[in-house]
């Protein structure tokens, strides 16, 4: 306790000149995935001496686009400012007609990611993905899907599944919940036909036998998960809900390299790996040109599917 107080005092007073004092924007309320990612980065960077003092600032709202807009406009050229973001932001930028996009910041690296899972309650008559798709083809309105916010990853996944199955994506009966937790409760309580969310949200319930896992959105089977991929089920859908870190716009190559090096150091640390394991996140670190290519691909695919669902004109 005392140590913490003193550390806090000195961190402000005796900043070493060579190291950056990062400020990380978490463009969401405390408690969500982006906030937790930012606070985990804060812990690791401070404990491993990558940065003597890291502050996390929450700028919540509109799928992260409010935080993104504020970040891009206030920090041009500042190599000590970081923002956490992810796949949800890609969709939110489109649905909210956000004037600021990921092109207005400097994406550094993808940090973690989760695949989407399709589940039904254990009591459901539907046994596999094939059964669910058949029901969807008979009457799309009778198949209600619970998932996260409208236009988010879960909604996009349902749209992609419907499209791959040859069902009109505008006809899906998607019930948006404000968070994974509320959606999970609706599925467990047999209120809806099926549920879509990241695999981690459902994992414990699937193991306990209260939910039946039908498929995951990974490119190939995940070790330790007894479910086929969507591709194996005959649906050409692959989707990762990733989280990333980006730096401010207007950085020169040297500044960008320095930030990228700090992030790489953090990702490679034992501490970061332990934190990921504790939280059940998988390390999907991807940086540089590879990450930029991936990002461009995701942006194009998301724009198409949001148009198909009818959320973006």
């Amino acid at each position: 306790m005392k140590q913490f107080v003193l550390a806090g005092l000195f961190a402000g007073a005796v900043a070493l000149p060579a190291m950056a004092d990062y400020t990380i924007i978490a463009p969401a309320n405390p408690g969500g995935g982006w906030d937790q990612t930012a606070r985990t980065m804060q812990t690791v960077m401070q404990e491993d001496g990558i940065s003597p003092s890291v502050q996390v600032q929450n700028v919540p709202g509109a799928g992260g686009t409010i935080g993104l807009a504020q970040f891009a406009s206030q920090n041009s050229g500042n190599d000590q400012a970081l923002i956490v973001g992810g796949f949800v932001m890609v969709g939110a930028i489109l649905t909210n007609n956000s004037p600021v996009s990921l092109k207005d910041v400097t994406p550094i690296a993808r940090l973690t990611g989760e695949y989407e899972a399709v589940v039904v309650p254990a009591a459901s008559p539907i046994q596999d993905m094939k059964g669910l798709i058949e029901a969807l083809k008979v009457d799309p309105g009778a198949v209600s899907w619970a998932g996260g916010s409208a236009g988010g990853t879960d909604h996009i996944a349902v749209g992609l599944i419907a499209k791959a199955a040859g069902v009109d994506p505008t006809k899906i009966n998607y019930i948006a919940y404000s968070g994974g937790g509320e959606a999970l409760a609706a599925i467990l309580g047999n209120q809806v036909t099926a549920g879509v969310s990241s695999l981690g949200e459902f994992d414990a319930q699937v193991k306990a036998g209260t939910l039946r896992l039908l498929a995951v959105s990974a490119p190939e089977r995940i070790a330790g998960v007894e479910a086929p991929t969507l591709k194996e089920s005959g649906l050409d859908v692959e989707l990762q809900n990733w989280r990333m870190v980006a730096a401010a716009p207007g950085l020169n190559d040297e500044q960008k390299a320095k930030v990228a090096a700090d992030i790489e150091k953090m990702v490679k640390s034992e501490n970061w790996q332990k934190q990921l394991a504790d939280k059940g996140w998988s390390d999907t670190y991807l940086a540089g040109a590879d990450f930029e290519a991936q990002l461009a691909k995701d942006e194009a695919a998301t724009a198409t599917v949001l148009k198909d669902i009818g959320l973006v004109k």
Partner: protein
Amino acid sequence: MGAFDFLLQGLATAAEPMMLLYALIGVTLGTAVGVLPGIGPALTVALLLPVTYRLDAAGSLIMFAGIYYGGMYGGSTTSILLNTPGESASIITALEGNKMARKGRGGPALATAAIGSFIAGLIATLLLAFLAPWIVKVALVFGPREYFALMVLAFVTVSAAFGDSALRGLTSLFLGLALACVGIDQLTGQARLEFGVPVLLDGIEVTTMAVAMFAVGEALFIAGQRIHIDDELTAVKGSIWMSASDWARSWKPWLRGTFIGFPIGAMPAGGAEIGTFLSYATEKKLSKHPEEFGHGAIEGVAGPEAANNASAAGTLVPLLTLGLPTSATAAIMLAGFQQFGLQPGPLLFATNPTLVWGLIASLLIANFMLLVLNLPLIGLWVKLLTVPKPWLYAGILLFATLGTIGANPSTFELGMLLGFGVLGYGMRLFGYPIAPIVVGLILGPMAEQHLRRALSISQGDWGYLVQSPIAAVLLGIAALALIVPLILRARGKGEMLSQLAGDED
């Protein structure tokens, strides 16, 4: 080992002197941050969680429990003394609590809040420990239509806070509902009433609105009443402790509040505020002194405060048994648990009994330390009211803006604080009640979303709403609560009118 042995073992560990000290530090820190208007328990826990990382597992668990309970409790102190609720769950506390404080009964108000919180925390934690798996089964039966029915019932209870004019109460409520429409529609992602301002996309922050309406509006109103400048509030009149009649009037509301708050907290989409609304309306209905409501009735503090704390423990039911974080606070707690290697979920009680029972023992001890810390402090808190008004209100506005800035340091948010503060001032001036507008802002989106989800599932069939027995019963109670007083009032008015007619003769 049975559940009880695990609990005793956990209690023995948590009662060691060092552990008690950690619990005390946690409770103190939690209260200190939670007491700030605008900083709710979620942000408090998020800010203070890293403090616990420095300790070993048992120590950090107990300090964490202390921070959680401290953060939950902190808001009620400022609600009662300064009429500035720190978060949405303590708005109702301000209604009666602040009236009591103004009459010099701040001591008993704080005491009934503290003891009520303790008793509710104690009972609710024990219910959590022994009945969680069963309670959660009941909670899961609640789907969108049952929640919608619950929201309708909560709406009816708002009328308990209408004051003396139905017109002004309804106007306040509808203004709240109108403000609730601002922002992205949850179900379709469309922006409503945002006028091209991106910050409005996320809607109006309830805490900003509550702090503005209560703290800023109140400061403006008091400042405008020049005459009061030199007279002091009666800080203490009579004993600062609860009298025998205070006890007699408090214990039933404590218990009722606990049993209203706990199940609602356990429901995945319940929310702590709903429990406080229902408890307030119940106490007003059942009280032998209904005329005191609105003027400082102790039942109106005891019940909602107990409901608030019980629902905080209730939130842990879905969190521990299903791994379901149902509120922002719970989501942060989940992150905290994972730090201790605790994976909440259906198998938790089976796979990790030592840690779970350690947590429950920590919660019990933290709850106790909260009482130990707060009862002696009451005398000190009440002294706050003897601070001369210029410094008192300057301090209130300093801390109110600190809370808003700390949660989101944006100029726009401060602008909203000022704008709603002026609105709150105007409403006070014309005799509009403040609580309904805030309640409308909280309940509006919940009711709308649950209704639309229910209708989506039924593909537009309105009959679906009453086809579940629970929903039908809840709607029935709401209808009775609305209609019966109207009939009684109509009769009463008739009598009064005939009396008046008689007088004029």
